[in-house]
Protein backbone atom coordinates (compact mmCIF):
# COMPACT_ATOMS: atom_id res chain seq x y z
CA UNK A 1 0.00 0.00 0.00
CA UNK A 2 1.14 3.52 -0.84
CA UNK A 3 0.66 6.23 1.77
CA UNK A 4 0.39 9.82 0.55
CA UNK A 5 1.15 12.09 3.46
CA UNK A 6 -1.65 14.61 3.96
CA UNK A 7 0.36 17.74 4.48
CA UNK A 8 -2.72 19.93 4.36
CA UNK A 9 -2.03 21.52 0.98
CA UNK A 10 -4.17 21.40 -2.12
CA UNK A 11 -3.10 19.58 -5.32
CA UNK A 12 -2.85 16.19 -3.65
CA UNK A 13 -5.58 14.70 -5.84
CA UNK A 14 -3.39 14.80 -8.94
CA UNK A 15 -0.78 12.56 -7.26
CA UNK A 16 -3.48 10.07 -6.31
CA UNK A 17 -4.92 10.09 -9.83
CA UNK A 18 -1.46 9.54 -11.35
CA UNK A 19 -1.06 6.43 -9.17
CA UNK A 20 -4.56 5.33 -10.21
CA UNK A 21 -3.53 5.59 -13.87
CA UNK A 22 -0.63 3.26 -13.03
CA UNK A 23 -3.13 0.84 -11.47
CA UNK A 24 -2.05 1.47 -7.87
CA UNK A 25 -4.26 2.33 -4.90
CA UNK A 26 -3.13 4.83 -2.33
CA UNK A 27 -4.35 6.25 0.93
CA UNK A 28 -4.16 9.91 1.91
CA UNK A 29 -3.22 10.00 5.57
CA UNK A 30 -1.60 11.97 8.41
CA UNK A 31 -1.60 8.95 10.74
CA UNK A 32 2.00 8.05 11.75
CA UNK A 33 1.08 4.38 12.22
CA UNK A 34 -0.38 4.10 8.71
CA UNK A 35 2.58 5.95 7.19
CA UNK A 36 5.18 3.84 9.03
CA UNK A 37 3.59 0.57 7.93
CA UNK A 38 3.10 1.53 4.25
CA UNK A 39 5.14 -0.17 1.53
CA UNK A 40 6.01 3.21 0.05
CA UNK A 41 5.40 6.79 1.07
CA UNK A 42 4.86 9.92 -1.02
CA UNK A 43 5.34 13.35 0.53
CA UNK A 44 3.64 15.88 -1.74
CA UNK A 45 3.57 19.56 -1.03
CA UNK A 46 2.87 22.91 -2.52
CA UNK A 47 3.08 26.30 -0.87
CA UNK A 48 5.63 27.60 1.59
CA UNK A 49 8.28 25.63 3.52
CA UNK A 50 7.60 27.19 6.97
CA UNK A 51 3.88 26.40 6.70
CA UNK A 52 4.51 22.83 5.55
CA UNK A 53 7.06 22.12 8.30
CA UNK A 54 4.72 23.58 10.94
CA UNK A 55 1.96 21.33 9.60
CA UNK A 56 4.15 18.20 9.79
CA UNK A 57 5.23 19.18 13.29
CA UNK A 58 1.65 19.70 14.48
CA UNK A 59 0.65 16.32 13.06
CA UNK A 60 3.55 14.66 14.90
CA UNK A 61 5.05 13.54 11.60
CA UNK A 62 8.58 14.94 11.72
CA UNK A 63 10.13 12.03 13.65
CA UNK A 64 7.84 9.56 11.87
CA UNK A 65 9.20 10.62 8.46
CA UNK A 66 12.81 10.70 9.66
CA UNK A 67 12.43 7.10 10.85
CA UNK A 68 11.00 5.66 7.61
CA UNK A 69 12.97 2.82 6.02
CA UNK A 70 10.75 2.13 2.99
CA UNK A 71 11.06 4.07 -0.31
CA UNK A 72 9.94 7.67 0.22
CA UNK A 73 9.36 10.15 -2.61
CA UNK A 74 9.01 13.84 -1.91
CA UNK A 75 7.40 15.86 -4.69
CA UNK A 76 8.02 19.57 -5.34
CA UNK A 77 8.02 21.25 -1.90
CA UNK A 78 7.93 17.70 -0.50
CA UNK A 79 11.38 17.16 -2.05
CA UNK A 80 12.74 20.37 -0.57
CA UNK A 81 11.49 19.32 2.88
CA UNK A 82 13.97 16.41 2.78
CA UNK A 83 16.89 18.89 2.83
CA UNK A 84 18.50 20.58 5.86
CA UNK A 85 17.24 24.14 5.57
CA UNK A 86 15.29 26.51 3.38
CA UNK A 87 15.99 30.20 2.99
CA UNK A 88 12.22 30.51 2.71
CA UNK A 89 11.48 31.90 6.17
CA UNK A 90 14.92 30.52 7.24
CA UNK A 91 13.27 27.21 8.07
CA UNK A 92 14.94 24.06 9.44
CA UNK A 93 13.75 21.09 7.36
CA UNK A 94 13.82 17.31 7.86
CA UNK A 95 17.59 17.06 7.36
CA UNK A 96 17.57 13.76 5.47
CA UNK A 97 19.59 15.14 2.55
CA UNK A 98 22.39 17.70 2.89
CA UNK A 99 21.98 21.23 1.55
CA UNK A 100 20.05 24.47 1.83
CA UNK A 101 17.24 25.46 -0.54
CA UNK A 102 17.49 29.01 -1.90
CA UNK A 103 15.39 31.32 -4.03
CA UNK A 104 15.72 31.94 -7.77
CA UNK A 105 16.82 35.49 -8.44
CA UNK A 106 14.52 37.49 -10.77
CA UNK A 107 17.43 39.96 -10.98
CA UNK A 108 19.13 37.50 -13.34
CA UNK A 109 16.41 38.22 -15.89
CA UNK A 110 14.49 35.08 -14.97
CA UNK A 111 10.77 34.95 -14.57
CA UNK A 112 9.92 33.50 -11.16
CA UNK A 113 8.33 31.07 -10.36
CA UNK A 114 10.23 28.67 -12.64
CA UNK A 115 7.05 27.42 -14.26
CA UNK A 116 6.88 25.04 -17.18
CA UNK A 117 8.76 22.23 -18.90
CA UNK A 118 12.50 21.91 -18.51
CA UNK A 119 15.15 19.23 -19.11
CA UNK A 120 16.48 16.53 -16.79
CA UNK A 121 20.25 16.03 -16.91
CA UNK A 122 21.36 12.79 -15.22
CA UNK A 123 24.17 13.25 -12.68
CA UNK A 124 26.66 11.00 -10.97
CA UNK A 125 28.05 7.67 -12.03
CA UNK A 126 25.60 5.05 -13.16
CA UNK A 127 21.97 5.73 -13.67
CA UNK A 128 19.65 5.76 -10.69
CA UNK A 129 16.76 3.26 -11.07
CA UNK A 130 14.31 6.22 -10.96
CA UNK A 131 15.65 7.22 -14.39
CA UNK A 132 15.29 3.80 -16.01
CA UNK A 133 13.92 4.26 -19.52
CA UNK A 134 14.07 8.06 -19.30
CA UNK A 135 16.03 9.77 -22.08
CA UNK A 136 18.75 12.28 -21.21
CA UNK A 137 17.29 15.75 -21.56
CA UNK A 138 13.68 14.59 -21.20
CA UNK A 139 11.26 17.38 -20.33
CA UNK A 140 9.33 17.43 -17.06
CA UNK A 141 6.99 20.00 -15.52
CA UNK A 142 8.25 22.36 -12.81
CA UNK A 143 6.54 25.00 -10.67
CA UNK A 144 8.72 26.48 -7.93
CA UNK A 145 10.44 29.62 -6.69
CA UNK A 146 13.00 27.92 -4.40
CA UNK A 147 15.44 25.20 -5.40
CA UNK A 148 17.97 22.83 -3.86
CA UNK A 149 21.65 22.94 -4.86
CA UNK A 150 23.34 20.15 -6.78
CA UNK A 151 25.22 17.73 -4.52
CA UNK A 152 26.59 14.19 -4.47
CA UNK A 153 23.00 13.01 -3.87
CA UNK A 154 21.70 14.65 -7.04
CA UNK A 155 20.36 12.05 -9.48
CA UNK A 156 19.35 14.56 -12.14
CA UNK A 157 19.85 18.29 -12.34
CA UNK A 158 18.07 20.99 -14.28
CA UNK A 159 19.22 24.45 -15.32
CA UNK A 160 17.33 27.67 -14.81
CA UNK A 161 19.94 30.41 -14.64
CA UNK A 162 21.73 28.08 -12.22
CA UNK A 163 21.98 24.29 -12.00
CA UNK A 164 19.72 22.89 -9.31
CA UNK A 165 18.61 19.46 -8.09
CA UNK A 166 15.67 18.10 -10.05
CA UNK A 167 15.83 14.55 -8.70
CA UNK A 168 17.62 13.49 -5.52
CA UNK A 169 18.19 10.19 -3.73
CA UNK A 170 19.91 9.36 -0.49
CA UNK A 171 19.22 5.79 0.50
CA UNK A 172 15.47 5.26 0.71
CA UNK A 173 14.72 8.99 0.62
CA UNK A 174 14.09 10.34 -2.87
CA UNK A 175 12.66 13.56 -4.17
CA UNK A 176 11.50 15.18 -7.40
CA UNK A 177 11.43 18.97 -7.67
CA UNK A 178 9.19 18.61 -10.73
CA UNK A 179 5.68 17.15 -10.75
CA UNK A 180 5.90 13.59 -12.13
CA UNK A 181 2.10 13.39 -11.88
CA UNK A 182 1.87 16.24 -14.40
CA UNK A 183 4.88 15.45 -16.58
CA UNK A 184 3.26 13.37 -19.30
CA UNK A 185 4.67 9.95 -20.19
CA UNK A 186 8.13 10.83 -18.75
CA UNK A 187 6.64 11.61 -15.35
CA UNK A 188 4.52 8.47 -15.43
CA UNK A 189 7.65 6.44 -16.17
CA UNK A 190 9.52 7.96 -13.19
CA UNK A 191 6.57 7.31 -10.86
CA UNK A 192 6.40 3.77 -12.22
CA UNK A 193 10.12 3.37 -11.51
CA UNK A 194 9.53 4.50 -7.93
CA UNK A 195 6.75 1.93 -7.57
CA UNK A 196 9.07 -0.76 -8.94
CA UNK A 197 11.80 -0.18 -6.33
CA UNK A 198 12.06 -2.98 -3.74
CA UNK A 199 9.44 -2.24 -1.07
CA UNK A 200 10.21 -1.81 2.58
CA UNK A 201 8.15 -1.20 5.68
CA UNK A 202 6.10 -3.55 7.76
CA UNK A 203 3.00 -3.80 5.59
Amino acid at each position, binding site marked *: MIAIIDSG*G*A*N*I*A*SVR*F*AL*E*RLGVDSVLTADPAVISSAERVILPG*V*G*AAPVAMAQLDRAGLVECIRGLTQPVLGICLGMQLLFERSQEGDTPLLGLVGGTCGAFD*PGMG*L*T*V*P*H*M*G*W*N*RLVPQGEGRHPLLAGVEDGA*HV*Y*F*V*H*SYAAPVSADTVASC*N*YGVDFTALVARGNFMGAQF*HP*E*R*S*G*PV*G*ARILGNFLALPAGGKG
Partner: protein
Amino acid sequence: MLTKRIIACLDVRDGRVVKGVQFRNHRDMGDILELSQRYADEGVDELVFYDITASSDGRVVDKSWVNNVARRINIPFCVAGGIRSIKDARAILNDGADKISVNSPALERPEFITELAEAFGTQCVVVGIDSRLEKAANGSDKYVVYQYTGDETKTISSKRDTVAWAAEAERRGAGEIVLNCMNNDGVKRGYDLAQLRLVREAVTIPVIASGGAGDYPHFAELFETTGIDGGLAASVFHSGQIPVPDLKRYLRDRDIEVRL
Protein backbone atom coordinates in the same frame (compact mmCIF):
# COMPACT_ATOMS: atom_id res chain seq x y z
CA MET B 1 16.43 25.49 -20.79
CA LEU B 2 12.85 26.24 -19.87
CA THR B 3 10.67 25.64 -22.91
CA LYS B 4 8.17 28.03 -24.35
CA ARG B 5 4.73 26.66 -23.54
CA ILE B 6 2.00 25.91 -26.05
CA ILE B 7 -1.29 26.15 -24.23
CA ALA B 8 -4.69 25.11 -25.52
CA CYS B 9 -7.63 27.03 -24.12
CA LEU B 10 -10.94 25.29 -23.87
CA ASP B 11 -13.82 27.70 -23.38
CA VAL B 12 -16.50 25.75 -21.58
CA ARG B 13 -20.20 26.46 -21.63
CA ASP B 14 -22.74 24.02 -20.21
CA GLY B 15 -20.17 21.23 -20.08
CA ARG B 16 -19.12 21.54 -23.76
CA VAL B 17 -16.14 23.23 -25.39
CA VAL B 18 -17.20 26.28 -27.40
CA LYS B 19 -15.46 29.08 -29.25
CA GLY B 20 -16.60 32.54 -30.32
CA VAL B 21 -15.09 35.33 -32.35
CA GLN B 22 -14.13 38.35 -30.25
CA PHE B 23 -16.04 36.75 -27.37
CA ARG B 24 -19.28 36.39 -29.36
CA ASN B 25 -21.32 33.87 -31.35
CA HIS B 26 -20.16 30.74 -29.55
CA ARG B 27 -19.90 27.55 -31.60
CA ASP B 28 -19.76 24.00 -30.22
CA MET B 29 -16.23 22.56 -30.58
CA GLY B 30 -16.58 19.22 -28.80
CA ASP B 31 -16.46 17.14 -25.64
CA ILE B 32 -14.22 18.29 -22.77
CA LEU B 33 -12.62 14.94 -21.96
CA GLU B 34 -12.08 13.93 -25.58
CA LEU B 35 -10.41 17.23 -26.48
CA SER B 36 -8.30 17.23 -23.28
CA GLN B 37 -7.01 13.75 -23.97
CA ARG B 38 -6.31 14.57 -27.59
CA TYR B 39 -4.25 17.61 -26.60
CA ALA B 40 -2.33 15.73 -23.91
CA ASP B 41 -1.49 13.02 -26.47
CA GLU B 42 -0.44 15.60 -29.08
CA GLY B 43 2.04 17.24 -26.73
CA VAL B 44 0.21 20.38 -25.64
CA ASP B 45 2.11 21.69 -22.60
CA GLU B 46 -0.83 22.87 -20.58
CA LEU B 47 -4.60 23.31 -20.74
CA VAL B 48 -6.74 26.20 -19.58
CA PHE B 49 -10.45 25.64 -19.06
CA TYR B 50 -12.45 28.81 -18.99
CA ASP B 51 -16.10 28.67 -18.03
CA ILE B 52 -17.23 31.67 -20.02
CA THR B 53 -20.69 31.77 -18.52
CA ALA B 54 -19.71 31.40 -14.90
CA SER B 55 -18.45 34.82 -13.95
CA SER B 56 -21.32 36.85 -15.30
CA ASP B 57 -23.95 34.35 -14.14
CA GLY B 58 -22.50 34.40 -10.63
CA ARG B 59 -22.08 30.63 -10.50
CA VAL B 60 -18.98 28.58 -9.96
CA VAL B 61 -17.72 26.16 -12.62
CA ASP B 62 -19.42 22.77 -12.55
CA LYS B 63 -16.92 20.60 -10.71
CA SER B 64 -17.63 17.16 -12.07
CA TRP B 65 -15.61 17.65 -15.25
CA VAL B 66 -12.63 19.11 -13.35
CA ASN B 67 -12.29 15.87 -11.45
CA ASN B 68 -12.73 13.80 -14.61
CA VAL B 69 -10.05 15.78 -16.44
CA ALA B 70 -7.64 15.43 -13.50
CA ARG B 71 -8.13 11.67 -13.46
CA ARG B 72 -7.62 11.34 -17.16
CA ILE B 73 -4.77 13.63 -18.24
CA ASN B 74 -1.14 13.88 -17.11
CA ILE B 75 -0.30 17.47 -18.03
CA PRO B 76 -0.99 20.56 -15.94
CA PHE B 77 -4.26 22.42 -16.25
CA CYS B 78 -5.81 25.61 -14.99
CA VAL B 79 -9.47 26.33 -14.33
CA ALA B 80 -10.98 29.79 -14.73
CA GLY B 81 -14.41 31.27 -14.45
CA GLY B 82 -16.52 32.50 -11.56
CA ILE B 83 -14.08 31.66 -8.76
CA ARG B 84 -15.20 34.16 -6.14
CA SER B 85 -14.10 32.69 -2.82
CA ILE B 86 -11.34 30.67 -1.18
CA LYS B 87 -13.92 27.90 -0.89
CA ASP B 88 -14.58 27.90 -4.67
CA ALA B 89 -10.84 27.78 -5.35
CA ARG B 90 -10.16 25.04 -2.81
CA ALA B 91 -12.88 22.81 -4.29
CA ILE B 92 -11.35 23.09 -7.77
CA LEU B 93 -7.75 22.54 -6.58
CA ASN B 94 -8.85 19.60 -4.42
CA ASP B 95 -10.51 18.12 -7.49
CA GLY B 96 -7.10 18.02 -9.16
CA ALA B 97 -6.65 21.32 -11.01
CA ASP B 98 -3.09 22.65 -10.80
CA LYS B 99 -3.98 26.31 -10.94
CA ILE B 100 -6.99 28.55 -10.73
CA SER B 101 -7.36 31.74 -12.71
CA VAL B 102 -9.31 34.76 -11.55
CA ASN B 103 -10.38 37.74 -13.59
CA SER B 104 -13.53 39.78 -12.83
CA PRO B 105 -13.62 38.86 -9.10
CA ALA B 106 -10.03 40.13 -8.73
CA LEU B 107 -11.02 43.42 -10.38
CA GLU B 108 -13.96 43.75 -7.99
CA ARG B 109 -11.79 43.03 -4.97
CA PRO B 110 -8.01 42.98 -5.62
CA GLU B 111 -7.28 41.66 -2.09
CA PHE B 112 -8.75 38.39 -3.31
CA ILE B 113 -5.48 37.71 -5.18
CA THR B 114 -3.52 37.97 -1.92
CA GLU B 115 -5.98 35.76 -0.06
CA LEU B 116 -5.66 33.07 -2.73
CA ALA B 117 -1.85 33.29 -2.72
CA GLU B 118 -1.76 32.98 1.07
CA ALA B 119 -4.12 30.02 1.05
CA PHE B 120 -2.60 28.01 -1.81
CA GLY B 121 0.74 29.56 -2.77
CA THR B 122 1.39 32.02 -5.57
CA GLN B 123 2.14 29.18 -8.03
CA CYS B 124 -1.55 28.22 -8.03
CA VAL B 125 -2.83 31.73 -8.67
CA VAL B 126 -3.20 32.99 -12.23
CA VAL B 127 -4.69 36.39 -12.96
CA GLY B 128 -6.45 36.61 -16.31
CA ILE B 129 -6.58 40.06 -17.88
CA ASP B 130 -8.92 40.90 -20.76
CA SER B 131 -7.47 43.99 -22.34
CA ARG B 132 -8.60 46.23 -25.17
CA LEU B 133 -6.66 48.87 -27.10
CA GLU B 134 -8.37 52.25 -26.99
CA LYS B 135 -7.48 55.64 -28.40
CA ALA B 136 -6.96 58.30 -25.76
CA ALA B 137 -8.27 61.84 -26.39
CA ASN B 138 -4.81 62.89 -27.59
CA GLY B 139 -4.80 60.08 -30.14
CA SER B 140 -2.26 57.91 -28.31
CA ASP B 141 -2.89 54.22 -27.65
CA LYS B 142 -3.92 53.02 -24.25
CA TYR B 143 -4.72 49.55 -23.00
CA VAL B 144 -7.74 49.15 -20.74
CA VAL B 145 -8.88 46.14 -18.70
CA TYR B 146 -12.36 44.81 -19.40
CA GLN B 147 -14.62 42.93 -17.03
CA TYR B 148 -17.43 40.33 -17.35
CA THR B 149 -16.27 39.43 -20.84
CA GLY B 150 -17.97 36.03 -20.72
CA ASP B 151 -21.29 37.67 -21.57
CA GLU B 152 -21.25 40.43 -24.18
CA THR B 153 -24.35 42.08 -22.71
CA LYS B 154 -22.54 42.54 -19.39
CA THR B 155 -19.03 43.38 -20.60
CA ILE B 156 -17.79 46.70 -19.23
CA SER B 157 -14.55 48.62 -19.02
CA SER B 158 -12.97 48.45 -15.57
CA LYS B 159 -11.24 51.76 -16.43
CA ARG B 160 -7.99 50.21 -15.18
CA ASP B 161 -4.78 50.55 -17.14
CA THR B 162 -3.63 47.11 -18.28
CA VAL B 163 0.07 47.45 -17.44
CA ALA B 164 -0.65 48.96 -14.03
CA TRP B 165 -3.13 46.18 -13.26
CA ALA B 166 -0.64 43.49 -14.25
CA ALA B 167 1.96 45.00 -11.92
CA GLU B 168 -0.60 45.23 -9.12
CA ALA B 169 -1.65 41.61 -9.63
CA GLU B 170 1.99 40.51 -9.27
CA ARG B 171 2.44 42.65 -6.16
CA ARG B 172 -0.67 41.10 -4.63
CA GLY B 173 0.56 37.55 -5.16
CA ALA B 174 -0.27 36.37 -8.67
CA GLY B 175 2.06 33.62 -9.90
CA GLU B 176 1.26 34.08 -13.58
CA ILE B 177 -0.63 36.41 -15.90
CA VAL B 178 -2.65 35.42 -18.94
CA LEU B 179 -3.05 38.52 -21.08
CA ASN B 180 -5.93 38.24 -23.48
CA CYS B 181 -5.77 40.95 -26.11
CA MET B 182 -9.43 41.38 -27.03
CA ASN B 183 -8.86 43.32 -30.26
CA ASN B 184 -6.96 40.37 -31.62
CA ASP B 185 -9.10 37.56 -30.18
CA GLY B 186 -10.44 35.15 -32.77
CA VAL B 187 -9.34 37.23 -35.77
CA LYS B 188 -6.14 35.24 -36.43
CA ARG B 189 -3.89 38.13 -37.41
CA GLY B 190 -1.28 37.41 -34.74
CA TYR B 191 -0.71 38.25 -31.10
CA ASP B 192 -0.59 41.88 -29.96
CA LEU B 193 3.19 41.95 -29.62
CA ALA B 194 3.47 45.60 -28.58
CA GLN B 195 1.03 45.18 -25.72
CA LEU B 196 2.57 41.88 -24.62
CA ARG B 197 6.03 43.48 -24.51
CA LEU B 198 4.74 46.25 -22.25
CA VAL B 199 3.25 43.78 -19.79
CA ARG B 200 6.29 41.48 -19.98
CA GLU B 201 8.53 44.37 -18.96
CA ALA B 202 6.27 45.37 -16.07
CA VAL B 203 6.39 42.06 -14.16
CA THR B 204 8.82 39.23 -13.36
CA ILE B 205 6.22 36.41 -13.14
CA PRO B 206 5.43 34.32 -16.24
CA VAL B 207 3.16 35.97 -18.82
CA ILE B 208 1.05 33.99 -21.27
CA ALA B 209 -0.19 35.52 -24.54
CA SER B 210 -3.78 35.01 -25.61
CA GLY B 211 -5.77 36.25 -28.57
CA GLY B 212 -4.85 36.38 -32.23
CA ALA B 213 -2.94 33.20 -33.09
CA GLY B 214 -3.88 32.20 -36.61
CA ASP B 215 -0.77 30.75 -38.22
CA TYR B 216 2.62 29.23 -37.38
CA PRO B 217 4.65 32.46 -37.72
CA HIS B 218 2.46 34.13 -35.09
CA PHE B 219 3.91 31.80 -32.46
CA ALA B 220 7.47 32.21 -33.74
CA GLU B 221 7.30 36.02 -33.67
CA LEU B 222 5.76 35.91 -30.20
CA PHE B 223 8.65 33.89 -28.78
CA GLU B 224 11.38 35.55 -30.81
CA THR B 225 10.45 39.13 -30.06
CA THR B 226 8.70 39.43 -26.69
CA GLY B 227 10.17 37.25 -23.90
CA ILE B 228 6.63 35.93 -23.32
CA ASP B 229 6.56 32.48 -21.68
CA GLY B 230 3.72 30.78 -23.49
CA GLY B 231 1.28 31.13 -26.34
CA LEU B 232 -2.35 30.26 -25.79
CA ALA B 233 -4.79 29.52 -28.56
CA ALA B 234 -8.12 27.83 -29.04
CA SER B 235 -9.81 27.70 -32.43
CA VAL B 236 -6.70 27.00 -34.53
CA PHE B 237 -6.05 23.96 -32.35
CA HIS B 238 -9.67 22.79 -31.97
CA SER B 239 -10.30 22.97 -35.71
CA GLY B 240 -7.09 21.10 -36.56
CA GLN B 241 -5.84 24.03 -38.63
CA ILE B 242 -2.59 24.00 -36.64
CA PRO B 243 -1.74 20.49 -35.41
CA VAL B 244 0.28 20.90 -32.19
CA PRO B 245 3.06 18.44 -33.15
CA ASP B 246 3.59 20.34 -36.43
CA LEU B 247 3.70 23.65 -34.58
CA LYS B 248 6.27 22.32 -32.10
CA ARG B 249 8.49 21.04 -34.93
CA TYR B 250 8.14 24.35 -36.76
CA LEU B 251 9.28 26.23 -33.64
CA ARG B 252 12.13 23.82 -32.93
CA ASP B 253 13.40 24.29 -36.49
CA ARG B 254 13.63 27.99 -35.67
CA ASP B 255 15.73 27.25 -32.56
CA ILE B 256 12.89 28.00 -30.18
CA GLU B 257 13.07 25.67 -27.18
CA VAL B 258 9.94 23.50 -27.06
CA ARG B 259 8.99 20.10 -25.65
CA LEU B 260 8.61 17.50 -28.36
